[in-house]
């Protein structure tokens, strides 16, 4: 059972229904957002940061999804992994890459820039300062603005995973049949 009951549009004031409508214009409102809606002003800013990150990170859509999925994998977040798989496939990320993400280091499916990004994501999620060699490799492929946005994107999803955990969002919500790669390790 979730920590708080999910809300729907009708539970919000007219002012905050506009926030809901803004979110719904992108697709069905996700279960976690229906809980964050208890504080609609926070929901609005949390959502808008996510939009900026998703749309202005400086990566193409498949690569951005690859990054988000690696973060979900590292955090072992079933809800986010299952929410993301259909979106990633829809924007052209291959099933083969998704299936290889758990062991990207030994896969030959990923380009040098993808490998630099995945190594960086692993270091960011791991916490603390990132080795200079990992940062230098990122700087070979990405401008400063993208390096920054990749960093925040990873941390934003890390925040989201912690939030989903504490809110007790159903890990099967949305796409419960999707297998979880960490369960096979």
């Amino acid at each position: 059972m979730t920590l708080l009951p999910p809300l729907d549009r009708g539970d919000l004031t007219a002012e905050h229904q506009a926030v809901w409508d803004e979110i719904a214009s992108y697709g069905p409102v996700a279960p976690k957002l229906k809980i964050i809606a208890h504080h609609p002003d926070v929901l609005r800013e949390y959502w808008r940061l996510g939009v900026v990150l998703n749309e202005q990170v400086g990566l193409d859509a498949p690569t951005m999804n690859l990054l988000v999925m690696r973060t979900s994998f590292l955090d072992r977040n079933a809800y986010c992994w299952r929410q993301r798989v259909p979106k990633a496939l829809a924007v052209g990320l291959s099933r083969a890459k998704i299936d290889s993400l758990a062991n990207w280091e030994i896969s030959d499916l990923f380009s040098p820039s993808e490998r630099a990004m995945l190594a960086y994501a692993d270091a960011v999620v791991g916490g603390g300062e990132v080795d200079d060699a990992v940062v230098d490799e990122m700087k070979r492929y990405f401008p400063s603005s993208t390096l920054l946005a990749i960093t925040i994107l990873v941390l934003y999803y890390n925040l989201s995973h912690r939030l989903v955990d504490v809110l007790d969002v159903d890990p099967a919500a949305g796409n419960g049949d999707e297998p979880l790669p960490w369960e096979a390790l």
Partner: protein
Amino acid sequence: MTPAPAVLPLLERIDLPSAAQPIWDRIAARGPVAPMIKVLANHPALLEAYWQLGVEVNDEPGIPTTTVHLLGLRTCQLDQSEYGWTQRLKKAHADGVDPAKIAALDDWSHSTAFDDDERVLLAFTDHLAARAPLAASLRAELGERFAPRQIVGVAMLVLYYVMNHKYVDVMKIRPVHQ
């Protein structure tokens, strides 16, 4: 030994495109522009969205400002964030947080300095920062003492601080000591 420089340059207002300078001015209107903001300025759209979430979680969590500071400082302790502690301590003193509470914070669960609401929120903070499951008793206490809006507000507040600390570490951003 000189600490390593930040991963990205710390920008100033003049480095931003003119269209983005009003964002800087809005931030500066609230006080000195912090080093972590100067690094975020490498991506002005991101700076604005990140800062705006911070304003919302800091200004509207639905709990007293002094409690916000206690939770912020507690998160710094848990994350071992010297940067966060240095930045937060100045604000906490300015807003009148009881120095005895700050001194007792690292062992709050054995201290008598905190009231019942603060104790529940500090326990919630410890769970959030550690990504530990919430015990049934803590869930019940949260529900009894706080409205859903406050629970979401505090959860996002603490997790935003955790995100800040990780960002500062990754970017090798150093605190400004005064």
